[in-house]
């Protein structure tokens, strides 16, 4: 992490706030603001007509290429937060900007999801009656890629996650770890700039979980993808460059691990 980068300091900027400008700090050194890739301003998510507050005023900046883990007990709102970041749901109040796109105002987020986001679900969410290859190819179908390009791209990514020999199999013939690798391949196939993984190792034994994490981290390093992992496992969280702790819908800690 860059030493003179200011992260998450007074994260709620006023209108005149301009990123990527230098300023002189109190210590007399020159600093600059890097424009965050993801900015959340006072995000609130309520369920059951306000009876349940899953997120209760989240302010957060995440920068391009970061590897962030979000940790917290179950029901703390970490998955809800991840869904907001992936534009899978909209907040009740507050603002979310990703790469300049206002996710609250934007009506049709499908293109945004298609181009920017790769989502790895805890329960894989693979389509059972499609083969591994078809599952991986799904995010490419709405694009204007040719059939040949799509096939090449899907094959390439299946090779990268080491499932070349399982291409034609249905997900129910695969082990939990293999299914999760398919889910990762599907998340990566459209070259997203952000990978969001919701408990990617939650349903796996520790050895398989490690393999999956290594795979995600490798993708993060190789392609400079911003990687955000939700977990309740401190060991997994510690692998990330930055750990955000959530409790009762609020950020209670935000620290860099090294």
């Amino acid at each position: 992490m860059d030493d003179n980068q200011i992260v998450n300091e007074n994260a709620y900027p006023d209108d005149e706030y301009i990123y990527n400008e230098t300023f002189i700090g109190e210590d007399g050194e020159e600093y600059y603001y890097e424009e965050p890739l993801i900015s959340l301003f006072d995000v609130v998510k309520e369920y059951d007509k306000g009876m349940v507050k899953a997120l209760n005023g989240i302010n957060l900046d995440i920068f391009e290429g970061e590897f962030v883990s979000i940790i917290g007990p179950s029901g703390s709102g970490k998955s809800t937060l991840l869904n907001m970041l992936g534009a899978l749901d909209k907040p009740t109040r507050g603002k979310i900007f990703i790469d300049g796109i206002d996710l609250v105002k934007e009506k049709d987020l499908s293109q945004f999801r298609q181009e920017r986001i790769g989502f790895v679900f805890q329960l894989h969410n693979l389509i059972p009656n499609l083969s591994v290859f078809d599952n991986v190819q799904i995010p490419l179908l709405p694009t204007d890629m040719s059939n040949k390009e799509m096939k090449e791209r899907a094959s390439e990514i299946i090779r990268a996650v080491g499932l070349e020999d399982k291409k034609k199999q249905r997900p129910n013939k695969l082990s939990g770890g293999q299914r999760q690798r398919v889910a990762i391949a599907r998340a990566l196939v459209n070259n997203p700039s952000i990978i969001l993984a919701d408990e990617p190792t939650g349903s796996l034994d520790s050895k398989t979980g490690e393999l999956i994490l290594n795979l995600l981290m490798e993708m993060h390093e190789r392609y400079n993808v911003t990687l955000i992992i939700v977990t309740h496992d401190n060991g997994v969280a510690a692998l990330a460059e930055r750990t955000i702790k959530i409790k009762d819908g609020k950020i209670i800690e935000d620290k860099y691990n090294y």
Partner: protein
Amino acid sequence: MSIIGIAIGITTIVALGLITTGMEDSVQTSLNDVGAEITVSNSSSVSTNTGLIDSSIVEEMKNRTGVIDAAGGLTVTEMNMDRLKSRDSDSSSLATTVVGLAPDKLYMMGINDVDGKIYENGTRDAIVGAEYAEVNNVSIGDDITLQGKEFNVTGIFETGSPFVDSGIYVPLDTLQDITDNDGVSRILVKTGEDVNDSAISDKIEEDYENFTTLTSEEISSIADDVLGILDTATLAVSALAIIVGGIGIINTMVMAVYERTKEIGVLKSVGWKSRKILTMILGETLVLTTLSGIVGSIFGILIPEVGLRLFNVTDFALGYSPKTFILAFGITIIVGIIGGIYPAYKASKLAPTEALRYE
């Protein structure tokens, strides 16, 4: 599973369609008019057996303007006493209409083609309708008893009208002789072309106050009335079939698509637009309903056909008309699309997280 569900709906529509069209067809042939344009009978008596017309009137009819030919016919009813006594469920006719008609006038009843030989005047020969022959197991050369006398069957005819085809025709003079009658029960009148049948028939009723006439136009208008009633009944049955079948199809489609809510959530989360999802569901619905349409049509034909054979129904045939199949396919596709698109639309409007939570 979905194909079976939808196919049951189509089977209902097709099977009931075939049966109702068959009913219409059979009534239509029953009411087909015969050769003569005007039938004259005696109105002074209810029964045609007793209220006879003097034979001399036949000649008078023949000489009227616009009339080409006239023929007297004597009709008696032959009861099958054996059938009454035996109480067996044998299938022979209980009562048969026996018509005495001169051999050269048979064409007036629409009897043109006779398998075998037509009788001659004064003989104890008879020709029988194809339906009578089949029901009573009678063939050419057999003897039958009519009014207590033996007659030899010389021919079998088929006109297509069940009323005529279930009867027996014998020489008029023979029947008059046996029954001790001089008169005829009705006069068949053949009019020329380009003449007004109703004007002629009105004139006959005017000149002979005891006579009533029935023109073939009147018969066909009665037929139209009957068919009209039948049409309405058919429509009601079809509507019922469509509702029952349609509900089945819509239910199947709604369930099939609801089950895929989670899949729709996955597609949305990887960036599919709602429109693309709907197009996909629409395409699948078309394939599904077409396949089901074929399966359902096959069963819709098989079930009533097998049923008819199983219960040995011979005097009723299913009415095959393209209308039935077009209707069944049309309904299925429309209802299938409504049933498929509605839940798909709802699912595609859900936030992906909610759709994904669906189990």
